[in-house]
């Protein structure tokens, strides 16, 4: 599957395209198939996201999992600061990245 990610223009937060909006959580990302160029152009023009790009991911029981480790780090947060990730209460969250 293909999902779209970028950074929020104002905050810089990592965001994922949900089909109608942007979410901080990769679990909310939807498969955009080959339609990613149009979505990215429109969303960048409306300034809701900065530098969007499409990536490969696989659907798992926990939702989409980006194919590349770099995007998994982006999705969770720095593995060396669990307190700053999106799942600070889950000590094993970093395993999902690796």
């Amino acid at each position, binding site marked *: 599957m293909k999902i779209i990610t970028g*950074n929020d*223009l*104002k*905050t*810089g*937060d*990592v965001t994922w395209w949900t089909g109608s909006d942007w979410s901080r959580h990769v679990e909310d990302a939807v498969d955009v198939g080959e339609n990613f160029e149009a979505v990215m152009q429109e969303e*960048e023009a409306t*300034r809701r996201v*900065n*530098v969007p790009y499409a990536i490969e991911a696989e659907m798992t029981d926990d939702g989409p999992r980006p*194919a*590349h*480790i*770099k995007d998994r*780090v*982006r999705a969770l*947060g*720095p*593995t*060396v*600061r669990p307190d*700053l990730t999106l799942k600070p209460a889950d000590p094993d969250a970093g395993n999902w990245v690796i």
Partner: protein
Amino acid sequence: MYQYDKYDQQMVDTRVAEFRDQVERRLAGNLTEDQFKPLRLMNGLYLQLHAYMLRVAIPYGTLNGKQMRMLGHIARKYDRDYGHFTTRQNIQYNWIKLEDAPDILADLASVEMHAIQTSGNCIRNISSDQYAGAAADEIADPRPWAEILRQWSSFHPEFSYLPRKFKIAVIASDEDRAAMRLHDIGIQLVHKDGELGAKFFVGGGMGRTPMIAPEIRDFVPADELISYAEACLRVYNRYGRRDNKYKARIKILVHELGKEEYTRQVEEEFAHMKTLGLNPPVEELARISEYFADPAFDTNASDDLDLSDPDFNLWVDQNTEEHKQAGYAIAVISLKPTSGIPGDASSAQIDLMADLAEQYSFDELRVTHSQNIVLPHVKKSDLYALWQKLDEAGLAPANLDLITDSIACPGLDYCSLANARSIPLAQKISERFADLGRQRELGELKLKISGCINACGHHHAGHIGILGVDRKGTENYQLLLGGSAAEDTSLAKITGPGFDEDGVIDAIETVTDLYLKERQEDERFIDTYRRVGMAAFKEAIYG
């Protein structure tokens, strides 16, 4: 230390106002990202993995308590309560919001700081010896020269769009504590026939093509130093490649032209420049130098120290250096606790270091390229009280220059260029070698870790270097041996096939075990490696 004059302050304030306008236009949609990106980068604002990242310049690594406290304030108010001290004597914040960036720059400007030229193809922050003005072995204080170079290079119209970024280091002792020969220009202040001048080394650097800068001039009179630097830059700006960013650094130009031909062209340019009268006026040199006069040392201060506390004794032995003034010491605060993140400090720790600088070090701090903090002028009679306060705050690891005092770039945990994580490796190595007795038995051992070929973690210059690579989507680590950033500058060589995370830590243990077995007398790891050679280490690692 230097204080802004009205021109400095006006330039920085004007830049803040200009950037505030640019940010407003970006947020309003009047600038595209393609238009805005070069503008934000000129103000040190990157877009990294998780957010915007702001790199703040700390000129030649020197700052006072008020400035340090402002860095803590920014961490607390605008970021996530910490900052990351870098291998270029700067600080980075990883969680900046675009809408906050102008206010942050205004806060910085209020204490004579900025983020200008911390990115882009321009002359970056001038780096220097972190012990400048305090070291017993320096022939002059390099900071006035670093400051003159800072002023000359700030907004230099001819050098704002160089083929690639450009880094300059200035030192003033034979011992190189600033990786001087691994800079685009390395300057060593020297005396010749009683006159102060400088040796010039040009064309060094790390990155994907590491090179040691060759010496191109053994003496440039001090009052012509700027003109000579300008001549070096002019030749580079004219002939440096702009068609291929991987071949655009000056090291490639010097290498391809050859040192002799590059030097010939520089000398020709220099001869021309001397006719233009571009050297800074003598009064300006004198004005700047006055800011770097020695503080009011107590000339009756005693060298006696009560070392009966064994932990304090270890810290003094490992983390203090000889000072030029009797009764004083240079104290190094290690930002490398066991399991810690090299170079990271919380806002509370930053505040404390500011307080301690004011209380014990004539209001001065330095940031080292090894990602530690220096209090340059501490009276020996104050060392115990200082150490106790550092220890309470987790800032007293006694590991300066030992294997756990590693350099590590932010790596894949933060950096969009990285291929592998660096920090977890540094943490695990610090845990494997946590025993201080074992570390001290190994002695001086410079371990440097980069998460990609760009080498922000200086892996080429590590006695032991580690380079993280992406191997079919998996993190893999290459082990390198034999590098040095000191006066015996050398480039490390790759041992062989890479390892996973645990494997490379095991390999490090193997090479340190071999070192202990082969060591003769007082040899450091690097000395034994150079004597024994790579083959023995490869054999031990790979069989």
